[in-house]
């Protein structure tokens, strides 16, 4: 028999459309008790969460410390960012003016 309880990682959601947030971990003899303890341990004064769940840590696959180092990304991904394409907006304004197309007809929207 195990000497101690199992480790559960606790997650909650603020709103139904929100992301899963890690709260912390706790020791519990079963998932049911882990859930009850999670409310008591981590959510006793916060606004009530939209959802709450626990995962036995044995079922989580963590990336290894060695692989974690490789997560660091080189600074060469600007082309994945919208700011890289700022020239597009300028170009639309230029094209509009050249062809005499009014603002009512062609709206140049900053956020794409």
């Amino acid at each position, binding site marked *: 028999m195990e000497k*101690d309880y199992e480790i559960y990682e606790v997650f909650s959601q603020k709103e139904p459309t929100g992301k899963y947030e890690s709260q*912390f*971990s706790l*020791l519990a003899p*079963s998932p049911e008790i882990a859930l009850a303890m999670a409310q008591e*341990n981590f959510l*006793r004064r916060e606004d009530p969460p939209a959802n709450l769940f626990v995962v036995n840590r044995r079922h989580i696959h963590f990336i290894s*410390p060695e692989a974690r180092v490789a997560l660091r990304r080189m600074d060469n991904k600007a082309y994945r960012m919208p700011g890289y394409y700022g020239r597009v907006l300028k170009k639309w304004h230029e094209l509009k003016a050249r062809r005499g197309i009014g603002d009512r007809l062609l709206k140049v929207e900053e956020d794409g």
Partner: protein
Amino acid sequence: MSIFDLPAVREDPEQVEAFLARIDRGEKIEADDWMPMDYRLQLVKLIAMHGISEIMGAFPEKEWVPRAPTLRRRLSLMAKVQDEMGHGQLLLRVAEDLIRPFGKTREDILNDLYAGRLKFHNVFHMPAPTWADAALIGWLVDGAAIITQKMLVQGSYAPYVRALRRIIMEERFHAFHGEDMSQALGDGTPEQRKMLQEALNRWWDALLMFFGPPEEEQMPSNQLKNLRYRIRTKTNEELRQEFLSKYVPQIWALGLTVPDETLRFDEATGRWVYRHPDYSYLRNVIGRNRGPRSEARLHLRRSAFEHNRWVREALLARQAVQKEAAIV
């Protein structure tokens, strides 16, 4: 099986160097990262003591829950005591993950406490005979803890930092809670004011000792290690000076007198000059669990542990049965 008996291992000096370089770069260490056994041991010592102190610290205050003067005060105090138990749980989780690779668990931490191998903070060995003591604990003991924790949260071990962030958030409530109780007494009837002054007289030395002996020319090796590993970033004396800077003016604002006629702020050095308490008391009395309330509180903790043993075992047995059923 003490939590402090970690296996002696031969470590690759280059790996240790690389680890220290990570610390120097300000990187944070995760539970599953490689770390020198010595770093692990320093963390276990600090975090197990911190965690167990939160739990032992709930006792002096819990004594006042049924005797709180009003329902409102009782609700606040109960919430605060519950927070402290919660802090204990967070910190024990962090300590457990550090000793788990060696087959040690929470039960080993508690057994070390009962056997006197694991200490708890000096302030929680002291009696809290009046309601003013409860107020003063909330105000100044929590105040001292907050100053220490704000330093520790800068440390290098990520899981401890995550726990501390949560704790510090809750401590903001504790600080106001304690100040509110103390203001009510300090600004109250002559009798209430006298009660608060007497509590301050009782607690002053213990509060100064909370930060540990001042570092003289030679810093103790434990301290040096923790600074090297960035487990802590300030010395005992620096923390005590911060405490004095924050709380002596508050004490004065309440019209109270610090029981030390030599206490003054030295403008030239920017430091507080004060009378040191007898630090040998920490080692010889508190360190041996011979403080005024050491035995009684340990007894309370141990008997709760023993009385609830059957519940823990029943729940574990139920889990074992379910697991077996799942295998079949």
